[in-house]
């Protein structure tokens, strides 16, 4: 089944950030190699006459991908809402990755402000992609506010730890079978991305794992393959784990077998 966000079809389940790359060219090459069709971007203060923003905008336009602006760094509802409004005008999209951050060390979502900001932005015509914890009560409130995509963290942003709470993420998938779910943050290796797919998540969003790799372009390809493998596995139906061994070779007809040997 094709991935769809707010009625738009995406040809890839890998969503990637555009920060921290060694150069603009490597960023573009990595995005292309990864097959990603959605990149995240931000808004930042412009130094007068510097024109850095225009250069970055031209670069992103070349990539021919969906653009998802974020509200990274915002700590209050007001900051997040105003940043989203500025991003909508700058990037000509009503999609917003909504971040309201509680703490600089953990970059944990500030969930009360997140719900309030999501409600304001949904009412204002935005299509909100909330960066959130895996709490189901929070998820219910975000869906109730109008969010049609949820993006729980796997582990803290930039940590590369994979999944801090895999049980809760598995529960969330089961609880919301029909809402697109994206693991956002914490993915450090292609194996984490494959596991997210095997868990039935619809997509993964990551930045550092590709941008800070020794070879970001090759790592982009690695993530693309891991995601294909994980998704195929999920669609194929994974076997149930067992506590005890179970022989795969037929027992019947085993040479030298005697009834009394069976335990």
């Amino acid at each position, binding site marked *: 089944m094709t991935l769809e966000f707010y009625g738009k079809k995406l040809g890839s389940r890998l969503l990637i950030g555009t920060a921290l790359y060694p150069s603009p060219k490597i960023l573009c090459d990595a995005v292309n190699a990864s097959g990603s069709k959605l990149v995240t971007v*931000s808004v930042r203060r412009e130094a007068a006459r510097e024109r850095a923003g*225009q250069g970055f905008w031209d670069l992103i336009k070349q990539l021919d991908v969906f653009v998802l602006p974020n509200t990274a760094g915002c700590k209050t509802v007001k900051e997040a809402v105003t940043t989203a409004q500025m991003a909508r005008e700058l990037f000509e999209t009503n999609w917003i990755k909504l971040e309201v951050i509680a703490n600089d060390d953990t970059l944990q979502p500030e969930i009360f402000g997140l719900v309030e900001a999501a409600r304001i932005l949904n009412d204002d015509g935005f299509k909100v992609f909330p960066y959130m914890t895996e709490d189901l009560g929070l998820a219910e409130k975000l869906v109730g506010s109008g969010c049609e995509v949820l993006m729980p963290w796997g582990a803290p942003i930039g940590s590369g730890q994979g999944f801090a709470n895999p049980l809760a993420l598995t529960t969330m998938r089961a609880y919301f079978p029909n809402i697109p779910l994206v693991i956002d943050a914490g993915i450090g290796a292609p194996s984490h991305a494959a596991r997210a797919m095997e868990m039935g998540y619809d997509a993964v969003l990551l930045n550092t794992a590709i941008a800070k790799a020794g070879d970001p372009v090759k790592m982009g390809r690695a993530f693309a393959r891991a995601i294909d493998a994980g998704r195929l596995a999920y669609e194929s139906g994974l076997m149930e784990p067992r506590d005890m061994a179970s022989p795969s070779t037929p027992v019947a007809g085993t040479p030298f077998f005697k009834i009394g040997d069976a335990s």
Partner: protein
Amino acid sequence: MKISVNGEAAETQAKNLQELCAALGHGHWQDRIATALNGDFVSVLARIGTRLNEHDSIEIVTPRQGG
């Protein structure tokens, strides 16, 4: 008049936000900037009608890399 632009103190004679942006080198309508005044978003079309006052705080932002 004393104002703040992107967190730094500044002096301006600009009467409205559009004039201020132009004075700071963002005068062309195609310049890819977005603005806020005292924490509230001001759209590109509203800049010319947005008067500036002493001690106003202005944000001028552009597209940038993000995660």
